[in-house]
């Protein structure tokens, strides 16, 4: 039986539109110091943190091997370090593997991103596409999301009003989250009146440009119990990658997400996910993604996303109490922040957004054009 791995501490900066006054290293230190203080761990060879798992995107950072410039603030000097480049939530998978594999007993996870650094984040995500077939038609993650949002709209019962309510709720939730001090609170009418970005996605449906950093300490059970009152166990992880060309995929099918969720549920021993989770955090980069990913996770019946929203489903199921990615987390960190938020809920440290007696949660991350890649993590506490 593989040993259990727990999240023992969580720290994050605020997520803001423009942290012009900070560079990556400064943001990372704001996360590293509280993690060390909370756990009492250091980087000593025998009993300390044995591995630093960094998260960053080379194009956003404008620096290849973007982790190499962060060695010092990762505590990685003369230690083991590896970078998660796909989506930050994968750091849980990586840490789980390293700890269960017996390589280390404790790992640091630390991710950073400043979407405000490049002149246009759409130009950055444009670089995910190939130079011959897809860049020449201007594809970026926003346009790709527009195509998916349209495909989803054609097949689902989700309409413009439902999406407006998702955005309005995200703003209200964000008010309770000290990490998202700049999220605007819009009314349904204001969202409905916002101009189209990539039909049917409206400007207010898009997650705002965000800068920030987030981190965790993961540890094997014996270590976890020594450094933390309520370790949050990673009981299931699953991920799945869909095709690259949008035409190779069925954009409204949630193919990759269904696979990722099934793998995570199977590993966590969950047969009936529907009523299992006290909190759910999904990476909604655009408003349509909240109901769509919930359907893909099997937590909302397929084609019923709109009815779910209209019936108060997000509140009833404690979805995105943090405000979600819609409140403003940078790309590549969204899923990791979701995991951090679920961990905080399970540790009873979620402040005003706390769900009483939360014991089991689901965190979701997504990356690539129109959700090409999905990753799902199941977190539980004793």
């Amino acid at each position, binding site marked *: 039986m593989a040993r259990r791995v727990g999240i023992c501490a969580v720290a994050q900066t605020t997520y803001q539109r423009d942290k012009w*006054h900070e*560079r990556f*290293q400064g943001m990372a230190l704001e996360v590293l110091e509280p993690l060390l203080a909370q756990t009492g761990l250091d980087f000593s060879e025998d009993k300390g943190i044995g591995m630093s798992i960094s998260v960053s995107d080379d194009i956003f950072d404008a620096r290849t091997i973007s982790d190499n410039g962060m060695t*010092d603030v990762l505590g990685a000097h003369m230690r083991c370090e590896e970078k998660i480049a796909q989506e930050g939530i994968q750091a849980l998978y990586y840490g789980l593997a390293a700890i269960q594999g017996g390589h280390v007993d404790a790992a640091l996870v630390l991710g950073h991103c400043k979407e*405000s650094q490049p002149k*246009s984040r759409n130009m950055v995500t444009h670089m995910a596409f190939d130079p011959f077939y897809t860049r020449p038609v201007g594809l970026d993650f926003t346009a790709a999301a527009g195509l998916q949002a349209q495909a989803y709209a054609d097949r689902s019962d989700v309409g413009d009003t439902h999406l407006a309510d998702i955005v309005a709720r995200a703003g209200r939730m964000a008010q309770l989250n000290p990490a998202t001090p700049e999220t605007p609170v819009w009314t349904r009418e204001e969202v409905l009146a916002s101009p189209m970005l990539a039909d049917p996605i409206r400007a207010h449906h898009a997650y705002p440009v965000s800068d920030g950093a987030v981190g965790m300490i993961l540890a094997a059970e014996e270590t976890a119990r020594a450094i933390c009152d309520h370790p949050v166990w990673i009981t299931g992880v699953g991920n799945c990658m869909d095709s690259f060309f949008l035409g190779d995929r069925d954009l409204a099918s949630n193919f990759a997400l269904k696979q990722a969720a099934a793998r995570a549920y199977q590993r966590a021993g969950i047969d009936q996910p529907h009523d299992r989770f006290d909190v759910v955090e999904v990476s909604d980069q655009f408003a349509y993604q909240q109901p769509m990913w919930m359907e893909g996770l099997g937590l909302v019946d397929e084609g019923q996303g709109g009815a779910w929203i209209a019936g108060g489903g997000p509140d009833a199921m404690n979805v995105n109490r943090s405000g979600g990615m819609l409140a403003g987390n940078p790309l590549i960190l969204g899923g990791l922040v979701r995991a951090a938020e679920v961990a905080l809920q399970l540790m009873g440290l979620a402040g005003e957004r706390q769900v009483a007696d939360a014991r089991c949660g689901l965190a979701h991350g997504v990356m690539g054009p129109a959700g090409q890649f999905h990753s799902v993590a199941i977190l539980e506490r004793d």
Partner: protein
Amino acid sequence: MTTYFGVDVADVIETMPSRFRKEAAAGISGRFGYDLGEAGRWRLAVRDGDAALAPAEDLDDCLAVVATDPQTFVGIQLGKIDATEAMALQKLTVAGDRGAFGSITRLFQKYLPPGEEALPDTELVVLKQTISVGQTFATGPVMGRFLKGLKQKKILAMRCPVCGRLQSPPREICAVCRVRNTEWVEVGPKGEMRMLEYVYYASPDPLTGETRETPYGAIGVLLDGCRDEEVFWHLLNPAQLDRVQMGSVIDGQVRHGSRLRPVWAENRTGSIDDIQYFELDD
């Protein structure tokens, strides 16, 4: 002789001189050996662009000798077998000057079995593009203070409160001790050259899009006040590349490098280029 892939190996060998592209072989000469197992041993003599092929038992006078079996030889000629894979599997070996042999193989026209017409070569499409995304880089307080120091012709370092080492440019944290650096210290501006790299190839700087003139000297300077590995990285006055000496400490033996001073830019903006380069402090 025998047939491989429907092709007579003798035909492949005997057409080698006629397939040799004289116009591309100007100035190339040498002897190249082909040890083809049952298909015999052959010497290709190239001189002033001409190639002559003859059977030869003794290939010791060859610049390079390729040894392989006839099937692999024919397969590679026809594109059915990958040469690199064959080498990895040791079905093909090249003894001697591999580089020269590689150049020679590229001078032969592709072998066409008798009766076959040459297919038009697929044109290979290559696209050249420069990706350019504007950036707003943040200094943060630590790098910001250092860069402002350069504006004032000062080189600043930070000192680790635990181990006392200096870092310039400064970092938020001492990597070794994993604690925040706290103390600011002015160092240099003069120092001793500890490392020099002659750089002949300059990649375009992705942050500016510009390419430095080459050759240039990338240097590590041990500024006054610093010690051991606390070197400061910058550039050397390119006109002095051949006049400078690297300093070193080997087995306790200290050899001092050239004494250098910074040359400040007239117009300083709070950037590492506020120092144009270092030069000899004569």
